[in-house]
């Protein structure tokens, strides 16, 4: 495989045949809007002291989660980071169970044991959110390796941030995937900041993931991560190739974290003009433009947001009224027999 350049973006004023169905474009938009409102609600709840522990939001990065999930089949696997709410929701995880987890209520998706950074919905193929940067890339290799050994055609999609490209696990995992030709699609969400520090200050190359691809015999691929249709196209191609035995892909999706690193971080280190510039590239605005250009009425587009906002408000009210978990459950589910006993 050569390390060929490939940058994909779409023009908001046009729509392509593969995604020209207004139905698909609208569904993607609705999904992104829901996630945006959900994350915004989490931010509010955090400030009200109702979210326990840190919470890292992917506001501005919804197109990657939604576009990625849209090209995965029911039995494909995905795996992500502590900034993982969007990825779980995009795969179909119950928003109520996720919010119960975030707010420490009974019925949390991880039974109150994972919290914001470890949202998981195995039944929807989302094999977890991992809070040690880079650690889940080798795990993704294992999921993909199992697919090969099981002889199925499932594909694993692994989302990680730009900061992860500087940690050893990234290199070990991408190397193994390339050497073993595993059906795994690595997706670097380059949101421009490793945490508080601009990624450009801590890498010697311009593109955190793409400029490293050649070292593993992979193509350098960059996609506009704020363009859900472009994400869908590029990740869809990578998934199809992996499914057909073509091996792994490493894709860098350019995006912007339209919030701080965590809810506790106002992100004041980001230049105002940079924030303003990226605000014009908001993935929701962009997709709204695509819908408008394809003939969807402005009122219908605006209606999505109003409807979802009410839905999320109702969800939050319901969740906040839910009871706390039973403290005795802290002792369950460490071992496969349901217990946590270490001695007789």
């Amino acid at each position, binding site marked *: 495989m050569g390390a060929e350049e490939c940058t994909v973006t779409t023009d908001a004023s046009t729509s392509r045949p593969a995604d020209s169905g207004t139905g698909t474009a609208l569904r993607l938009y609705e999904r992104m809007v829901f996630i945006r409102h959900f994350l915004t609600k989490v931010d509010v709840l955090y400030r009200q002291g109702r979210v326990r522990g840190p919470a890292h939001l992917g506001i501005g990065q919804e197109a990657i989660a939604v576009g990625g999930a849209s090209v995965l089949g029911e039995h494909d696997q995905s795996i992500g980071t502590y900034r993982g709410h969007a990825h779980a929701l995009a795969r179909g995880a119950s928003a109520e169970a996720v919010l119960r987890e975030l707010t420490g209520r009974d019925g949390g998706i991880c039974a109150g044991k994972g919290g914001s950074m470890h949202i998981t919905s195995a039944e929807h193929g989302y094999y977890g959110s991992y809070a040690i940067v880079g650690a889940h890339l*080798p795990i993704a290799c294992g999921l993909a390796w199992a697919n090969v050994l099981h002889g199925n055609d499932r594909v694993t999609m692994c989302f990680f941030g730009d900061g992860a490209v500087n940690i050893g696990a990234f290199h070990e995992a991408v190397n193994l995937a390339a050497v073993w030709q595993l059906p795994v699609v690595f997706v670097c969400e380059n949101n421009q900041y490793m945490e508080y520090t601009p990624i450009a200050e801590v890498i010697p190359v311009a593109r955190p993931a793409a400029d490293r691809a050649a070292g593993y015999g992979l193509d350098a691929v960059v996609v506009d991560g704020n363009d859900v249709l472009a994400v869908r196209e590029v990740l869809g191609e990578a998934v199809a190739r992996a499914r057909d035995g073509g091996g792994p892909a490493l894709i860098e999706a350019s995006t912007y974290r339209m919030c701080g690193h965590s809810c506790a971080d106002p992100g004041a280190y980001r230049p105002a003009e940079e924030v303003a510039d990226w605000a014009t590239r908001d993935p929701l605005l962009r997709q709204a433009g695509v819908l408008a250009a394809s003939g969807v009425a402005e009122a219908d587009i605006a209606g999505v947001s109003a409807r979802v906002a009410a839905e999320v408000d109702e969800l939050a009210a319901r969740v906040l009224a839910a009871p706390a978990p039973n403290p005795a459950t802290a002792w369950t589910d460490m071992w496969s027999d349901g217990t946590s006993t270490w001695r007789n």
Partner: protein
Amino acid sequence: MAQLTYRQAVAAALAQEMERDPRVVLLGEDISSGGVFKTTLGLRERFGERRVRDTPISEQAIVGAAMGAAMAGLRPVAEIMFSDFYATCWDQVVNEIAKARYMTGGQLSLPLVIRGANGGGLGFGSQHSQAAENWAMCVPGLKIVAPAHPADMLGLLAAAIRDDDPVLVFEHKALYGGKADCPDGEHVVPLGQAALRRTGNDMTLVGLGLTAGTCERAADTLAGHGVAADVLDLRTLVPLDAAAVLASVRRTGRIVIVEENPGQLGWGASIAALVAEEAFHHLVSPVARVSGGNVPLPVAAPLEAEVSVSPERVVAAALGLLRPATAGSISAPGLI
């Protein structure tokens, strides 16, 4: 009954389980050619390269891939060539593998084994000789196995592979060449059951892995001094057969705990605490501990021996317990 070396017992256990369960797969550095300790000899020829997979020198990838594969329904057995190398993938072991089931509320299941060569005594130096089983004991969510005999190597590794939880199996590199009878047919030794290797009512000697044999040899010497000792081979640290330790010490009233790792916060300290908390009134002498020294393990034979446990040190500690106590002196005679 076949005679197998400890190293052959590793391969025998892997073969036994790979034969009965197609989900069992192996990965690790150089394993297709048998590995540096020849513990996987012949398995690639027998089970093929799909199930016996060589990896790069890439411990995070090895252990992480084992985790992912386990989550997706396989039963991987990953080899970490020397247990010192756990340090290079410790994040995967303690932050990911140990916690994934719990922190997802039981959504993920990780039936995997990580196995490899552990411990000192062969002059491998400070980066290839550590007894690392102790590192894992303070991490909830990991089971810890350290066989002392070929038959246990076979049976405990088989049980570890069948277990639905992550199990770390510490094979002692100084034991690989030892040969002993192993049961014919399928052999499985349940995790969490200590083995009573010698019986005697005067004291209890407790060991694990290499030091189980150290205790056996010490007990044989003590018998010559007219001292009859129970020797308990713990076999697994987690789950711990605390009941076996407590039952023995309640009968003997004395205990010598022998561990290869340095003594501070060693697993032996947990056994000592257990005895102090739950069998104190049965004790007729202080608890004694014999452990490795608090230095990185040196290479030259006299230096390594100086800071390592030995039957002689165990005997000295044991006999020390039988001398009349000196007022004010309760120092453990064997702790170095």
